[in-house]
């Protein structure tokens, strides 16, 4: 039983930044698992609660946020950790990289120092050994002449290089899980592809699971094992990557696919989902996606559907999930 337990398990996670205000929580009842060495993509528009969920896993939400639900990592309840215990999880067992490579590194310290301090925070090692290790890591993330680069400051590196440094820092203690929050969004398209390939390679080298947050279905298609689609703080659909692309069971997923330039063909399908996400202060009474949904029926405006299994491991929070497979496409 223990052996089959997932690496990370999130159950009924609710994050509310303004509890008691009646506003829709930023994350509202999210549950999903990540297995060892698995790469799970969480997809959604900005404001869908995907980054907030990631920060909740890292315990990095502001103190003012009301959090409920369970987050367990290797069977350990993360929400019960003391400050000290958190420090041995962060950076050592779970690494994290962020969206903004230009501001995520401390501008006044050399990058070598920022790597070394992470290593030495978690392992007893000499300064010399940690610098050797840091140079190795920079080499592994594809930074040329790594030893000379140790004394460089962040401003001397390009955005792509800085993000490689961030990856090196996040992986420095060989964590079992790497959380990457839109790691390529701020970068050039060509560099995006290189970094994605790098992440995929390192996943093998470091035998780590990856939770990749993105809004780009092209990225999902390239690397994901499994996909969690989020909308307005809730999970709309979750399934393995093939089911998501071949037979989406939620009109929102379908809309995301339609609005993504196809990675594998030159033809661009430029349909977009009309409208915007519901105002958290005045959410619609029924399905949160109903106002934008091409398939919405009267009942969708009355009843807010829960996530349920549709076929195989595929889960959807759409009342019409079954019909979608029958060719009833928008």
């Amino acid at each position, binding site marked *: 039983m223990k052996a089959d337990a997932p690496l990370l398990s999130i159950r009924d996670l609710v994050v509310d930044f303004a509890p008691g205000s009646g506003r829709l929580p930023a994350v509202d009842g999210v549950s999903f698992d990540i297995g060892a060495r698995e790469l799970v993509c969480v997809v959604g528009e900005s404001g869908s609660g995907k980054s907030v969920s990631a920060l909740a896993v890292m315990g990095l939400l502001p103190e003012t946020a009301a959090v409920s639900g369970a987050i367990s990592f290797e069977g350990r309840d993360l929400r019960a950790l003391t400050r000290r215990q958190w420090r041995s999880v962060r*950076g050592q067992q779970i690494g994290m990289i962020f969206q903004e490579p230009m501001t995520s590194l*401390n501008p006044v310290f050399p990058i070598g120092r920022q790597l070394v301090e*992470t290593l030495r925070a978690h392992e007893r090692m000499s300064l010399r050994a940690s610098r050797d290790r840091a140079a190795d890591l920079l080499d592994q993330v594809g930074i040329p002449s790594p030893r000379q680069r140790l004394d460089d400051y962040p401003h001397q590196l390009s955005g792509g290089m800085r993000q490689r440094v961030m990856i090196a820092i996040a992986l420095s203690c060989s964590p079992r899980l790497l959380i990457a929050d839109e790691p390529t969004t701020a970068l050039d398209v060509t560099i995006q592809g290189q970094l994605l390939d790098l992440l995929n390679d390192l996943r093998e080298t470091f035998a780590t699971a990856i939770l990749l947050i993105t809004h780009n279905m092209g990225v999902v298609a390239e690397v994901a094992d499994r996909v969690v689609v989020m909308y307005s703080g809730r999970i709309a659909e979750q399934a393995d990557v093939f089911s998501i692309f071949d037979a989406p069971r939620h009109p929102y997923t379908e809309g995301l696919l339609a609005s993504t330039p196809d990675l594998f063909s030159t033809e661009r399908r430029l349909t977009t989902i009309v409208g915007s996400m519901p105002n958290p202060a005045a959410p619609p009474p029924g399905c949160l996606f109903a106002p934008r949904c091409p398939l919405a029926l009267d009942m969708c405006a009355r009843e807010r559907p829960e996530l349920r299994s549709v076929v195989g491991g595929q889960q959807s929070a759409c009342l019409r999930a079954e019909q979608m497979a029958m060719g009833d496409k928008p």
Partner: protein
Amino acid sequence: MIGYTLNRLLQAIPVLFLVSLFAFGIIYLIPGDAATVIGGPTATAADLEQIRRNLGLDQPFHVQILTFYTNLFQGDLGRSLLLGIPVTEALIQRSPITVGIAIYSLAITIVFGLITGIVAALNHNKWLDQAATLFALVGVSLPNFWLALVMIVIFSVYLGWLPTGGYVPFTEDPVGWLRTTTMPAVALALLQAGLLTRITRSTMLEVLGQDYIRTARAKGLSEWQVIGQHALANVMMPVVTVMGLILSVLLSGSIIIETIFGVPGIGALMGNAIMSRDYPMVQGGLFFITAALLLLNIVIDVLYTWLDPRIRVKGGD
């Protein structure tokens, strides 16, 4: 780096020229006959003549200004009417005392201002923050000479812990030096500590919201490393830039504070010169202190560029 320093020094020359011109011009602000004002009501005609000759007031204006600058370039700021010795000599003699107290006061300012500012920022909007903010505001709103007098009432008159004034050189008796300089240093530090608290607090609040602080936490660093190293290193930058202002307030405050505590530094020298209408001393002191501050500001700017890798280390792609 050297280029930058030279550049800053060159830029200071016109400012220094104007500063010297203002210092020179002060004597022409005296209403009526300067010699009569300086000599006072008891001066005889011969006395007045002597004063005019000493100050060069009997010469035409262009000769006066030419003499002033010729002397200035030789480091000669004139002769004190009160002490009968060259102004430069008096200033240099008294400098170490004022510099010693200034360093002491600056140390109190930095330690106190940084700590209160950081504590306030870490407890943003809690009572500690509000208390520190209030302290900082009260600090910049109190006249420092009044605080000096209140401290004398409390610590000298009632408690009898410290002498009401006087000065003991550090080299003769370090404890005596501390006993005589602590009240002046604290009185001088109060205002600047308030200033520094405000700046530290707002900078720290800004830094704490930066992405690299979140990164530092995500790496599993201890709170000490996150705040004391990652945040503090970035807070120090803007704090260094206000050092010039702090030193300026500190030096002008020393006139009144040294006078009150009877500390024989540059401040008391100036205070006496003002009260006894020793204009060469006032002019010389004004120029000397301002020139020293200009130089210190350049040192601080250079230090700043050296501290900030974004300026110090050029490069990147």
